[in-house]
């Protein structure tokens, strides 16, 4: 197999990857990303007031959807897409026709590595997605497929092929992704630590997935990347990516795919207002005490052989077990089902590979 280092990954996936960006203000940040993003197609999901015109810098190939478009395309199913929250970005995942998605926030810029070189975050995400994951046994030297690393003594050879990577979760220098209480206590803390590692999050372990700098194999795991009901009219915010991450991880664990975290870093420039955040998150902070045990104990039956089947099953269990925590979860469970229906409508099987694994009954 050709060494990925000799083929520019940018050339490799130019027509196979969409960059999904939610925004309410402007896309000036794209100027800094131009050298890395310009070859790719952008899907811009405009949140907030649809009558406002979003200016996209010249030279980018893009499609833009505002709330009117979302309502037109999904009809009544549009109810599952959040309004006035960046969670609306998952609409972009649904309408994309590409194999891979990279999503980034509009306050995230190009970071520099310790040598001072600009980090091509997209290139690193692609490397992460194109190389296997190793969820069944932890490698103490982290990603064994990186140049200069390998599996350590004691790592069984039968596990060294790894499994397909479904998600690549990147990190952030400068403003760290803290919750509101932590932000209030440490308003000046900046993440200056460049940890030169990519690693697979082990099977059976949950993590807080941040949507600021995230890439995934849409054909594998797309339907699980629903970012929930947040924002306008909802009791909670800033848990969209968390929710998607927990569902995604449970499903990846069940279907035998990997989730990586670590490099690449981006530079997160904007600290959101912690008091606004607190109001959005506050229910989430105590709900998550119920949510985590729920996700840790979710078991999916053997006949859930597709992401859609897994996701629908999780929705069922959300209603059964979390409905009593708050009625919000009944609505969320319904929205999860609506999302899958909408996904399948926009992505009929045959067109996408998000169908059953071998040995499962096809749709």
């Amino acid at each position, binding site marked *: 197999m050709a060494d990925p280092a000799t083929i520019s990954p940018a050339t490799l996936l130019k027509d196979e990857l969409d960059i999904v960006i939610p925004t309410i203000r402007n896309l000036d940040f794209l100027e800094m990303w131009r050298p890395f993003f310009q070859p790719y197609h952008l899907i811009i999901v405009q949140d907030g007031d649809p009558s406002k015109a979003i200016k996209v810098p010249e030279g980018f190939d893009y499609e833009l959807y505002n709330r009117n478009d979302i309502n037109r395309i999904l009809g009544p199913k549009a109810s599952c897409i959040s309004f006035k929250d960046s969670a609306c970005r998952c609409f972009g995942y649904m309408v994309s026709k590409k194999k891979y998605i990279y999503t980034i926030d509009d306050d995230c810029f190009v970071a520099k590595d*310790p040598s001072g070189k600009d980090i091509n975050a997209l290139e690193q995400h692609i490397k992460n997605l194109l190389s296997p994951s190793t969820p069944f*046994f*932890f*490698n*103490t*030297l*982290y990603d064994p497929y990186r140049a*200069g*690393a*390998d*599996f*350590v*003594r*004691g*790592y*069984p*050879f*039968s*596990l060294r092929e790894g499994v397909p990577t479904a998600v690549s*979760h990147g*990190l952030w220098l400068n403003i*760290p*992704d*803290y*919750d509101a209480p*932590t932000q209030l206590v*440490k308003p000046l*803390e*900046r*993440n*200056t*630590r*460049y*940890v*030169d*590692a990519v690693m697979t*999050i*082990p*099977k*059976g*372990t*949950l*993590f*807080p*997935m*941040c949507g600021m700098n995230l890439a995934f194999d849409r054909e594998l795991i797309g339907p699980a990347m629903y970012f929930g009901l947040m924002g306008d009219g909802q009791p909670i915010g*800033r*848990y969209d*990516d*968390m929710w998607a*991450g927990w569902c995604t991880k449970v499903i990846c664990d069940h279907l035998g795919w990997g989730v990586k*975290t670590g490099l690449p870093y981006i530079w997160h420039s904007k600290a959101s207002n912690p008091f606004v955040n607190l109001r959005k*998150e506050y229910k989430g*902070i105590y709900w*998550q*005490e119920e949510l*985590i045990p729920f996700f840790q104990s979710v078991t999916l039956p053997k006949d859930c052989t597709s992401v859609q089947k897994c996701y629908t099953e999780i929705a069922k269990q959300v209603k059964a077990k979390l409905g009593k925590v708050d009625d919000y979860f009944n609505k969320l469970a319904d929205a999860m089902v609506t999302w899958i229906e909408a996904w399948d409508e926009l992505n009929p099987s045959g067109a996408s590979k998000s169908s059953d694994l071998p040995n499962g009954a096809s749709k």
Partner: protein
Amino acid sequence: MSLSIKDDEIDIVIGALRPDLTSFMNEWRTIFSRFHLIIVKDPDLKEELKIPEGFNLDVYKKPDIDRVVGTSTSTIFSGYSCRYFGYLVSRKKYIISVDDDCYPAKDNKGILVDAVAQHITNLTTPATPFFFNTLYDPFTEGADFVRGYPFSLRSGVQCALSCGLWLNLADYDAPTQALKPEERNSRYVDAVLTVPARTLMPISGINIAFNREVIGPALLPSLRLGGEGKFRWETMEDIWSGMCVKVVCDHLGLGVKTGMPYVWRNDRGDAIASLRKEWEGVKLMEEVVPFFQSVRLSREATTTEDCVAEVANVVKEQLGTKDPMFARAAKAMLDWVKLWKSVGSST
């Protein structure tokens, strides 16, 4: 170094597999000299040990080992396993152990890494095995728990084991190093992280530290390869011991950390020669890993000794019939628990 930890709570245990420890001790002098050291000479080593002056240490050789455990038992301390004798006779709370072919490493800024201080920091700050923190160690300066990390899990659990890493000669198995003879680890990853609960990993004995009071009996000499030799490529004893320790820690709700500190591991030995001599260890892991992944300890196992005994019995039942090496390992584990109770426990 945490101000609340006194130097006299720490023992540094060195297994001497080579006689001349002069350069090893001198390289570590600025870091080791304030601590008490236990040096255990490989009973198979014929030459006299050469140890430079200026250290507070106790040296144990074959006659000493024979005297404490008896001549028939002392064979379990041959080779790399000699360090376990040091763990047995120590009475300190924390033990740090590095191989005698490792020197202090330098970090990304060119500063010498105080491996002892980092291990102690790892052991004296909580571990977080129940949920993965994407910014790694939340207790380190400049980091914290990220958004989405449940608050009830933020106090963490006690860290029982700290597994360090190696620059230069990484701890690869012989086939891997033989395939890439020039490969050296030059990547300094500035992180410590907790190994999640129920996740297993190969725990290398090259650079390790633990809370002896809490987990002492679970680090043990038991699995000995038929062709076990005097290079790490020819052993699996630490990997086996590490599996036991992780299973026990998971059961008792204790944490295991991995990452910094790094040590600089000197080039030594020939991977191809080791491979020709000993490939058995590599094959073994195919059985060992699924086995340990399936071990579940009973509710009644509430002490480390009980846990180790239970693991030993499961090893005997499930692996003992597959290979006499496992049957011997199970027996060695049970013997170790008895030995620990008689010799290892503080009075």
